[in-house]
């Protein structure tokens, strides 16, 4: 079971990276989102997923009984939110690139390169 989840996590990461290797910026963006999901699954697996009991203290008790690891979940929770924020920021970048350059081909977005090489005047 754990092996299956690990395989799925690694597979999702692989697919995400394959999408990120594309020149299309939107595919790259979707890849980033997918990568975030894949890495979270891997974190979940690495944290040990043997126990299906949510880490909630049962009513009437004062200590957490046998349950899943709360620390892993706290980590992943913030990771989900940060990954989401990253995706959204990147979406904003892509949209601006589209607006200014009329292209989503990463190779064609070269505003920085167009500024020229430093010391170019030496060639002249």
């Amino acid at each position, binding site marked *: 079971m754990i092996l299956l989840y690990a395989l799925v996590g690694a597979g999702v990461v692989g697919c995400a990276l*394959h999408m990120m290797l594309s020149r299309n910026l939107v595919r790259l963006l979707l890849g980033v989102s997918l990568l975030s999901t894949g890495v979270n699954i891997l974190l979940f697996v690495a944290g040990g997923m043997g126990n299906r009991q949510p880490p909630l203290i049962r009513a009437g008790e004062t200590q957490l009984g046998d349950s899943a690891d709360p620390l892993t979940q706290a980590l992943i929770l913030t990771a989900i939110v940060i990954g989401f924020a990253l995706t959204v920021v990147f979406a904003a970048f892509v949209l601006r690139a589209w607006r200014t350059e009329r292209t989503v081909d990463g190779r064609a977005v070269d505003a920085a390169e167009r500024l020229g090489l430093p010391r170019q005047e030496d060639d002249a």
Partner: protein
Amino acid sequence: MVLLLLLALVGSITVPLVARVVGRGAGLIIALFPIALLAGFVRMADTVERGWVRGEGINWATSMGADLTFRLDGFSFLFCLLVTAIGALVIVYSGAYLTGKPRAERTRFFTLILLFMTAMLGAVLAENLLVLATFWEATSILSFLLVGFDNRSARSRRAALMALQVTAGGGLALLAAVLMIGEVVGSFSMAEAVERASEIAAHPLGAPIIICLMLAAFTKSAQVPFHFWLPNAMQAPTPASAFLHSATMVKLGIYLLARFEPVVASVPWGRTTIIVVACVTMLVASLQALRAEGFKSALAYSTMASLGILMLLVGLDGPQATVAMIGFLFSHAIYKAALFFCAGSVLHATGSQSLRSLGGLYRFLPYTALATIGASLSMAGIPPFLGFISKEFLFQAQLESSWDITPLAIAVLVNAVMVGVAAVVTLRPFFLGHGKVTSVKHRETPSLVAPPLILALAGLTISLNPDWITRVALRPAVAAVYGRAVEVEIEVWHGITPMLLLSIVVVSIGALIARYWKAIHIRLNGLERFETHALERRWDLLQASATRGARIVSRWLQNGQLPDYLLACLVGASVLMGAALWAAGALPRMPADVPWRWDAAAVAVIGLAGAIAATRASTLVSAMIAVGLTGFAAAIGFLLNGAPDLALTQFTVEALLVVLLTALLLAVPLATPPTRSRERGWLDSAVVILFSALLLVAVIDMAGADPVRRASDFFGEASYIAAKGLNVVNVILVDFRGFDTLGETVVIALAALLGRSLLGQRGRLDVAPERERERHLILTLTARPFAVLLGIIAVVLLLRGHDQPGGGFVGGLVAALAFAVLSLSEGPTATERTLRVPPMGLVGAGLLLCFGSGLLAMAGGAPFLTHLWWEPTVAGIDLKLSTTIVFDLGVMLVVVGTVLSFLFGLQREAAR
């Protein structure tokens, strides 16, 4: 002494500001500062005169041996006097020389000159070798800035770069030598290193140390084959040339080798190397001095020849060599600086400095002509000038040394050339060739003539009345270099001696050279193959090929292709992981398996299928749906495996992503024609599969590691007792690790700021009103109630978060989802109106709440982010009020504000 240095540093930065305010005469005011420093040093003359060494220091990084220690002995003292006195004259002269420049430029020049002066003082006062190397490099950098002072001229830039590369390269050699000395001796004390000279020489690192020291000295003091930077450095403004490239900085190399003479002399080849290099330098310099056409370049090559003489004297043994070295160093600094000033005045007045086209200038520049005569007589070694005495010393040292006649013959020749050059630079521009110059651009001013006249006069008065300077500077300096006191007799007339006869020979040959200068000059100029030019051209070629190589490498490595960068990162990471696995040499630890469940397995497989579908999707919409599928599958997977909080968050995030990305997809073209070549596709797949496989192994190993749950167990035990929360995940987030969460919240708020600048409402007024929206009946009818429902859910999630699944993050996401639904139906503008406050306002308020909730406890003396509890009973109901809820509310507001600012921004931008 340390105080003086500190004063020099502070003053160098502040005093030149005078030139911003005062126009004419600023040089005179600023010159008071180096004069004050000179006075400060003269006050220490008593100590030096007695042969004492004054040490001062500040403990800084003692464990690393890097203490800021300084010491003042006779040799340092001589340099300090020269540096501050000539520095003051340079400042006075520059004030007049730079009249045409704007005030900002002049201020910059004064600052650089004074900073250089400080760096020189630091270098000659340093006792810790690391400090010495630091100040040494500082002089190189300031020389670079001064040579390239006229930074709009390509020649200046080239010369500056050349000077920097050669001298700073030597500086690196010095640093290497210093570090090796530290390795051998165990400390960075110069005194200790010199004391244990034989030990250093016997050590295996001894030869590298000595070679590095020599490299540093030869580059700095322009010895062949590193000499070519010095003539080029004459691109600097003339006062800077006078100061750096003749009087002071180039003598640092002499200073270094003189200090380390015991070390260098401990190996048999040490002195020989120095003497050979010095002799070659002298010969090359003399020939070049005769070839030179410009006033300044003739002086530059004669300076190089003088440096060769000094280097030779460092290499020769015997006390008389040290006496001659000190004497010549002193007299040369004085007359050469004066001659540079005169050359500068000629350049300033006529705009030309060609020795062949100038003539008859004494009518226009009478005082400069006078100063040139005085300085040239000293340079030619005519009695009773100081130069005569130092030349006597030189010949005496050579006659007394254990070396054969060759260096002496070369020295005679070189001195003769110097006599010739002195005569040529005096006679040709000023006295011969009447009528060649008919008018001058600038007349002499007191500030232009006073510095060279003072120096020329000093060359005469010191030799006639040498008592004070011999007592406080020359004799202690010789003692400091030689290691014990040596009698120094400064006297013009010693009777008929071999030295006097040699002097007569020198002057006669010099007179012949001066007589036939033009013929010799033209003949030598005809010779194309001159070694210095070969070296210079080689340097140019090296520069060009280095630049070209760098360009090729960066074109290849930094080609602007994002996929290539990513691929390189993946390959690199794979290599690292693979190497780590290989090094471990063990199979991964297998985790204890958990019972197979078909539901969880099916969800996982669906997730993977979604990811694979995403990579194969031909349009972006289907790719987005496939990515969403994986996301939802992950959420269900979390839910089935005991992580309801994660599931909630993941669900909401996926829903929000759909809304946000749809806005983007509405704007961009949806079709994604394949862009990779077939081979590139295979390569990408291979690298990705390799990387994922390694990742898989690593994760399995991590999961199989012995569970270390100490932190988790603590959180589980303390969650209710200490933090009154039943949902341990939430308690960790808001309480135990509240500070981390605060940081995370700030990151999200920063993302909101970034979004605002990317999707900012610039020119909002110009934006055409939103297009009439096509209203979908069912959506319009249901959106509002649905949004209200989601809003209520969000509040409930927030409130119950401490005890049950929920909390600020997920509450914020759900609340944002409520508005997202609304904006889908009514558009961003109407939704923003419903929201009533701008999203960034929510972000700000949320941050304030987060920080405020943590500050509250500080009023009671507890640490930041200690949460407070208040449990009153109102109307029979037990209430649990806490600052944790305030903190969580802050997180929620930040999340809502951020998501909404992006949502509205994206929707508006996409709809344009």
